[in-house]
């Protein structure tokens, strides 16, 4: 029951005007609903539109089974027209209050039979919406009781078949949407043995020569997967064996409303803190030891003072004395020369 923006503002104003802060339990819940650096699984709210057929209700039930425990199936029928601004406001409200980011609304009328509107929100606002007509549905029940079912909360492996997925921006968005819808909890580490089902999405396109429009159909098939040991033992990698287990949906894409570029960019923006910090100047050698790297300033070895010892000091002393003596000798010789010159020039010696 996250507060809508209006309610949040009113609550803040109340606190500012000196009102009491909410109870600790309420505050904890509110803090849990605030934006986090790393986000967890997205919840889905499954609802019915103005009129919903029995089969479509069954579709929602199957979706809930697939997405459990992150799905909430609402019982009442809602007068919501998804592609209307009012309808979008209602959907935003419902997703906010149920703490969900994804929604699926099933309805049935003459113009759009077996309609399913799938959508996702960002910042409590509708981001993308896809309206789809279900042309074929085989539920998990229809496959019978003996077919093994996936465990609740297990992550699906997903496979996209066909080249139309990469055709244009819209289909790529659609692909991202389907992955987002079904992927579950985004984890860092995964116990690979827990993988037990695969969802396969194929996209086909049919041209209607009369109206010259194309209709895209998404074929969703779910298979129960059992991993078996590779018999030749050449690799540790197991081998999957698939059994169709349902639900299988053939969905005809009717309308879509994808987010504008600005909103999409805002939604894709990741916090700086989430980026993994690069560890520099560290490496591991083949023995598993950590090797570090130091960067030093340039050192002029000649001008540096090394360690002093007695012998070296003595040597230095002797050198200094020798030099002194040499200098003295030179001076003397110079003096002598000067004296000789003086004598030469003036005839007598210089006695000062």
């Amino acid at each position, binding site marked *: 029951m996250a507060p809508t923006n209006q309610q949040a503002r009113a609550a803040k104003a109340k606190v500012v005007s000196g009102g009491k802060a909410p109870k600790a339990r309420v505050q904890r819940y509110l803090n849990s609903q605030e934006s986090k650096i790393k986000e967890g699984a997205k919840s889905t709210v499954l609802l019915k539109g103005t009129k919903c057929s029995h089969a479509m209700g069954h579709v929602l039930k199957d979706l809930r089974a697939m997405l459990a425990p992150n799905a909430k199936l609402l019982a009442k029928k809602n007068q919501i027209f998804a592609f209307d601004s009012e309808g979008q406001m209602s959907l935003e409200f419902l997703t906010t209050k149920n703490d969900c980011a994804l929604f699926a609304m099933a309805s049935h009328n003459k113009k759009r039979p077996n309609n399913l509107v799938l959508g996702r929100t960002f910042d409590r606002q509708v981001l993308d919406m896809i309206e789809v007509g279900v042309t074929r549905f085989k539920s998990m029940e*229809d496959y019978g009781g003996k077919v093994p079912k996936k465990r609740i909360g297990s992550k699906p492996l997903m496979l996209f078949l066909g080249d139309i997925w990469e055709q244009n921006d819209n289909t790529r968005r659609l692909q991202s949407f389907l992955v987002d819808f079904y992927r579950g909890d985004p984890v860092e580490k995964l116990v690979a043995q827990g993988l037990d089902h695969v969802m396969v999405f194929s996209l086909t396109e049919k041209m209607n020569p009369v109206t010259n429009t194309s209709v895209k159909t998404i074929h969703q098939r779910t298979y129960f997967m059992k991993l078996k040991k590779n018999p030749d033992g050449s690799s540790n990698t197991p081998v999957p*064996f698939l059994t169709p287990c349902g639900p299988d949906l053939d969905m005809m894409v009717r309308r879509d409303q994808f987010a504008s570029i600005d909103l999409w960019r805002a939604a894709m923006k990741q916090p700086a803190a989430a980026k993994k910090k690069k560890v520099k100047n560290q490496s591991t050698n083949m023995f598993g030891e950590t090797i570090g790297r130091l960067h030093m300033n340039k050192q002029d070895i000649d001008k540096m003072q090394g360690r002093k010892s007695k012998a070296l000091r003595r040597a230095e002393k002797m050198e200094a004395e020798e030099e002194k003596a040499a200098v003295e000798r030179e001076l003397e010789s110079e003096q002598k020369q000067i004296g000789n010159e003086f004598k030469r020039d003036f005839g007598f010696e210089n006695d000062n």
Partner: protein
Amino acid sequence: MGSKKKKSSKKKQHSAPKEEKEDQVDYGATVDAFFPGDDSSAHAEEEDVPVEKGDDDDNDKQGDEGTDEIEDDKKNDEPSDDDEEEEDDDESLEEEEEKTANQTASSLVMMDSEEPCSFDLRNLTAVNSHPLHHESLYKNKNDSESASKKKKKKKQQEIPAEDEKLTINNAAQVLNEEYLLQKATEGCTQLIHALWQLPTERSDAGPMVHLPTYDKIPIPRVLPPPPPKAETKWEKFAKERGIPLNKEKRSRKVWDEATDTWKFRHGYDKANAKDNNWPIMEVGGTDDPYEDPWQKQRDAKFARTEDNRQNQMKNQERAGVLPKGAARKVLKSRTESRKAGREGGGNAGLPVGVPVDMTENKLRGQASTLAALKATQKSTASMGRFDKPVEGEPERKFPVSKKKRKYMAESSTGKTSGKGEQERAAKVLQTVLHGGGVETEKARKKGKLAKGVTAYDYEYDDGSNKALFQKKKGRGGIGKNKKMTKKRIK
């Protein structure tokens, strides 16, 4: 029988030869499967056993796969076979062998034409961007279903294709499920292979795979990233001076000397609490003996909590969470209300009989009487305009109606005092052209203008507004207008 072979070709569940290997290790069960122990699974009799499509990219040998799955799937799949349109149960061995021969041949072919997929391992997704083979993708309904004998056909929740216009030529076109399964198995095998190349670590539940930290397929967030936490005044100071903050180091519990127990550091019944609440208090050196020491304690505590609250609010103001001046306002209102409470209420100072809305000024004596007089004089239908003034009463002043426009007449001397009409018109024009200027800036700073088209400016009416419940129009609806719930109706 021939048609049977065609259909039940590549699905693994059909393979039900009677030979069963009891010593096969079921992969899914144990950790051991990751570590090649006894390779008892690799055995002969390959040729007789049907082969799985997808495995072939990994190993060149065909045919031993089937043995592993026999035990489990035999139980699982036979009833489920009925649900598949082309399925039959209970096939004899001879048919199997024929099938397998076909399969091994075809499987060889499949291996060559394997399509490499691209992966997004964080989302456990593989994308096979090769175009789907249309001929094998679709099959004609008439072709398959009429031929096979269906023993038990469970009800399928078939929702017929509603838009006939779109299925002109493809009225009976149904997808070939086997082809999809085959493709699925191929892709799945590749994906599993890719996943197993990732670094692993051991854990209680089994080997854990370290998934990459980035999404290849872009997935948006639910909420925008949280703004970085602003530094409080103390944190800033401590950083400058190099004082350690001790945020994580302080333990919640502290050893209490008095009771020899571990007690919480803060809050109710905290450790090492200085208990000052004795019935008799000693008068200290500098204390005033006529002062109430308990009141003094209470005042001191109040002052401390108020300071703490103030500092917290100021930090929030600096961070931008609260508007500027909020802390001061709250402090003012709290001190006032405390003072009023102490003095015995807001109306304590005024004499009885004075209208209550005059408590603002809190006048006394003559001033209060005069104010009361003024108020009563105004409370007539004509706001006191036409009442007879009493002798000695000062002249009554009536506020000039703002509704009447003042026309600034241009004087004959040409000097215009104040703003002429031309200047005022020019000012209006400027506001229209350049959006208000100083005033809008002020308003924007105060936060009165919408900042943009984000959810935070979105005035969504979620029905919690009281005004919506108003049944009566005008001032009559404002009063006791509660929503008529079932309880109230009773």
